[in-house]
């Protein structure tokens, strides 16, 4: 028969635009800098569970791209993950593992465990040999208790009672190292996390804006978005901003009316299955 055989759709990355990109670069195009989360992210284990914290600044080179970016990502109802590094990478990898965890929950009929999320993340990141720039603080509470892990872009992991990542990690770690102890209460844990994030916000240029906190305990998760707002706009004009007509100079005017190109037929055939 003269029928063209259908090629099966190829998966994977399409390299079609790579030569075009090379040509554009040669002609002097400036590639847009990718949005990074300069970031301070922290986590600590307290007596009833885990507290995660993050700042909310997303940067594109020297510019603040987003002043209130959510860095604490949902993985499972009992597991959350803070992400530092390239924003696209952290979003994509946490979304992907979150979906995989949900499918796993349906298959097993059980609540997800933190080590499952950890293994999925570390094997994905290792196979990309560090090119997926995602540094994560993963925390949660499952049947085996509270867990806190850090995951590095090359795929190595650490299990710790308190952890910090991102450009502001040194500032936040200094707060943890001086004030952390075992058996903190919930209020003490949240206060310590907020203090550590503030240290990152005020001392690191890549971190700023507000503090997000997430508290995960047995059976209950509280996502405290914008728990602290230590950087309000200091001056807001009381008169407000008005834009008077005539302030912008009009150079030329052209009016084109919209022509309908499609004729609508009244009373066509009824929809059939």
């Amino acid at each position: 028969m003269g029928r063209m055989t259908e090629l099966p759709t190829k998966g994977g990355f399409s390299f079609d635009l790579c030569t075009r990109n090379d040509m554009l670069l040669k002609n002097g195009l400036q590639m847009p800098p990718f949005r990074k989360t300069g970031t301070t992210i922290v986590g600590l284990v307290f007596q009833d569970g885990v507290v995660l914290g993050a700042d909310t600044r997303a940067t594109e080179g020297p510019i603040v791209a987003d002043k209130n970016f959510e860095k604490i990502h949902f993985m499972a109802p009992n597991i959350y993950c803070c992400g530092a590094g390239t924003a696209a990478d952290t979003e994509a990898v946490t979304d992907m593992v979150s979906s995989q965890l949900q499918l796993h929950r349906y298959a097993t009929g059980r609540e997800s465990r933190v080590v499952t999320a950890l293994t999925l993340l570390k094997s994905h990141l290792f196979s990309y040999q560090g090119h997926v720039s995602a540094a994560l603080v993963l925390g949660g509470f499952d049947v085996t208790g509270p867990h806190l892990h850090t995951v590095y872009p090359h795929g190595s992991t650490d299990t710790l009672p308190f952890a910090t990542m991102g450009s502001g990690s040194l500032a936040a770690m200094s707060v943890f190292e001086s004030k952390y102890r075992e058996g903190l209460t919930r209020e003490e844990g949240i206060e310590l996390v907020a203090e550590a994030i503030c240290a990152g916000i005020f001392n690191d240029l890549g971190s700023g804006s507000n503090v997000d906190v997430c508290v995960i305990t047995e059976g209950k998760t509280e996502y405290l978005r914008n728990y602290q707002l230590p950087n309000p706009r200091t001056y807001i004009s009381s008169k407000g901003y008005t834009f008077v007509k005539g302030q912008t100079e009009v150079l030329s005017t052209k009016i084109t009316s919209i022509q309908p190109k499609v004729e609508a037929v009244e009373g066509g055939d009824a929809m059939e299955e």
Partner: protein
Amino acid sequence: MENKLSGFGLDPTGVERRTFLEEGESSPKQSLYSLSLSASLYLACFHLLSLKLGFILLLLSIYKMDLDLSAPHSTGTTIIGVTYNGGVVLGADSRTSTGMYVANRASDKITELTDNVYVCRSGSAADTQVISDYVRYFLHQHTIQLGQPATVKVAANLVRLLSYQNKNMLQAGVIVGGWDKYEGGQIYSVPLGGTILRQPFSIGGSGSSYLYGFFDQAWKEDMTHEEAEQLVVKAASLAMARDGASGGVVRTVTINAEGVTRKFYGGDTLPLWHDELEPTNSLLDLLSSSVPEPMST
């Protein structure tokens, strides 16, 4: 990024069964059955690791992304393994560094492969963690199929196969140590490149440079358990005093016929060497009301 595919030129049909029968191999109990199992695991791990990694890296080497990433997470490290009359003692420091920053000051570099075999990891943290995970998985299957605990030699050879086959992509220097009923306590060194060498004692990591002379002088055959443990702790603390990439606490694992014992030596219990001072007016002591208990793993 250099072409990382040249490690895959090995012909899988050229499996050398001989590699499991090294010099000194005298136990008649190591049947051909267990050898062939090991060979099939060898093929499995070759395909598993190399194909997956190879394909991904092929794609990445075509589309090179020049990202300025922070330094890979590596274990600067001092790792030590010694045999004594009755088993082995493995020891390590606890510092994991990312460039000049200490990412984890209390990490555990001695990882379990099976009940009776442990491995000390040095080099890239990601690479050694993945190797340990693969080998733990293979050994678990091997133990089920064999019907008895795996021997240290098989465990060490599985590590060595992964290390050698992927030598262009991995940065992993490990010491495998354990106890089995055929050969007793054994230490196998698997440094960068994938050599395997059985030794009465072995040192590795960046801090080991400072210990070669020490061990030449202090090592003796047929020590007791206490002597071996003291030797390991003393050596680790000497290396930690001189090597910037090693530090923190000393962890040891003893493996013998009775089982496995883990010990922890906090920084304040370690001896002070030349020019090291006692901490005075430490803010850590002044600020906290009580000395916190070390975390239990």
